[in-house]
């Protein structure tokens, strides 16, 4: 009896204040969603143990479809399921989902505006030891360029859980980018995720850091470090990269002389790209982009890789101080 209660408590968890890998939050959220909504179906391409869709598969074997190692077919099949009135979540590693199946996503999902949720895990260099072949640093760019696509990069487990619940009710294609490694909790307990709505922790006087994913945590640390040196840095979690919350962005840009973007993704075409594109047209001010710099990842421990690729709080601090000339 006691263990059963404990189990159900675990399954309805919100992940507020909890350090957890976003993929774990996904697996739990999806399974809960499956209980509430019979239309939810899940597809995976032989990585269900890693993407955590296996949890859903165990609970709802009839609504889980392992497609084998065939991402293109998985995306098309998800499209067909949506046309039969289901709400398909299709998962695999980010690079295979967005890269291998890009044209299927364009032609089948976006052009017909199908109600398919592409939730990919193992994005970014924190994949770690598997190395460059498995580290998507281009996925946000690949998805952002597609008409009709919504692109979301949650920052922690709590936000991920809300993102999954929210997109199930949204009609249309969505890409969600999740990670492999455990990440600290960053979002406050009263946070409510909404598509296209960024969250401002604080608007800074000297600089505003626009971050998403694991870089929100790094940005918050950078803010602490900078405050000790008398620099007031704001932090905004731009978890929805598309559509971009231009209102908050303009507010952030008008209050400072510098915008810094931070993402675990190439500085080309991702969050940094989106912010720079928007500001250059509507409120041109200096923008510094932190991310991987036109390069592939590599093998190693996630923490070591973050240092190697310049994705730590210290790197954000250094970039800001250089740009401000202080």
């Amino acid at each position, binding site marked *: 009896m006691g263990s059963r209660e404990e189990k159900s408590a675990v399954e309805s968890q919100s992940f507020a204040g909890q350090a957890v890998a976003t993929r774990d939050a996904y697996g739990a959220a999806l399974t809960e969603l499956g209980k509430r909504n019979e239309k939810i179906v899940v597809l995976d391409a032989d990585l269900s143990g890693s993407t955590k869709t296996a949890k859903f598969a165990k609970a709802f074997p009839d609504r889980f479809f392992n497609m084998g190692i065939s991402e293109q*077919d998985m995306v098309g099949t998800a499209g067909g399921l949506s*046309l039969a009135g289901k709400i398909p979540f299709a998962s695999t590693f980010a690079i295979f989902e967005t890269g291998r199946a890009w044209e299927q996503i364009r032609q089948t999902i976006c*052009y017909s505006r199908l109600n398919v949720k592409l939730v990919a895990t193992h994005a970014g260099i924190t994949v770690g030891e598997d190395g460059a072949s498995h580290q998507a640093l281009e996925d946000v760019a690949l998805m952002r360029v597609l008409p009709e696509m919504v692109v979301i990069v949650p920052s922690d487990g709590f936000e991920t859980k809300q993102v999954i619940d929210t997109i199930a009710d949204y009609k249309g294609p969505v890409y969600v980018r999740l990670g492999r490694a455990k990440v600290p909790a960053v979002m406050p307990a009263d946070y409510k995720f909404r598509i296209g709505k960024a969250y401002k922790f604080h608007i800074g006087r000297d600089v505003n850091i626009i971050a998403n994913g694991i870089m929100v945590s790094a940005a918050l640390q950078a803010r602490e470090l900078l405050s000790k040196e008398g620099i007031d840095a704001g932090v905004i979690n731009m978890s929805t990269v598309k559509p971009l919350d231009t209102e908050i962005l303009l507010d952030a840009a008008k209050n400072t002389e510098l915008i810094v973007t931070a993402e675990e993704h190439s500085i080309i075409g991702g969050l940094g790209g989106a912010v720079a594109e928007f500001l250059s047209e509507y409120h041109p001010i200096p923008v510094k982009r932190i991310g991987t710099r036109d390069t592939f990842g590599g093998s190693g421990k996630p923490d070591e890789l973050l240092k190697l690729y310049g994705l730590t709080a210290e790197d954000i601090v250094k970039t800001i101080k250089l740009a401000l000339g202080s």
Partner: protein
Amino acid sequence: MATVTQSRDIEFLKEQARTVRIEILKMLAQAGSGHTGGSLSAADIVTALYFYKMQHRPDNPKWPERDRFILSKGHAAPLLYTVLALTGYFDKSLLGTLRKTGSPLQGHPSSKMLQGIEVSTGSLGQGLSIANGMALGLRLDDSHSRVYCLLGDGEIQEGQVWEAAMTAGHYALDNLCAFVDLNSLQIDGRCEDVMKIDPVAEKWKAFNWHIFEIDGHNMEEIVNTLDEAEKIKGKPSVILAKTIKGKGVSIFEGKVQYHGLAPTKEELEIALKELGENGK
């Protein structure tokens, strides 16, 4: 809008197919571009589906109990548009807008722009996966609806087709029936010269499908096979239809250049005469 008149009468269906060919050629000539050969080669098959086999309601395109048709070889759009117009999905006059700026009759089918189109196609190799997903979803709901999918023979050179073939076999999708329009030609030439696809039947068999091999211009055979395919349980069915590209008009038949060429005014005249347009 009129509800479609359906019949199993072979003479009725042949007459419908003749009309379909005439309308395809007229719309292509008017558009000045488009895919003649592959629209004509599959005309008998698609006519049999819409005028006989499929449960569908042109006045209610999203009727949940309808059978579904996916034109995986999306370049045969003129064929699909014609059949949809003639069965009452939209006014026939719209056919004259094919490929024109702003027309819902895009060069390749767009489901957002035209009712009756289940899903947008045009990039080859993607339709069978979509059909599989529909079949899986319908089966989850214990639906009696069936899913039909038409592929080209050049199209099966796409790798995704075989991923999808594997999936349909693995999930034993017996509510799915695919056609391969074996007209032997693709843009760059004969399939066997561009990229050999033979042996086709053995390939589908190896992927756990039930095989039918037919003459894709013999209406009686098409109709009988569609009935037989419905009885196959525990496996998806594929109807390998031997066809002639450009079928019905001697100047287009078996000519690779008419894959993507529309008839000129003069060619249209010859074609309409051959199809007996003015005679009836």
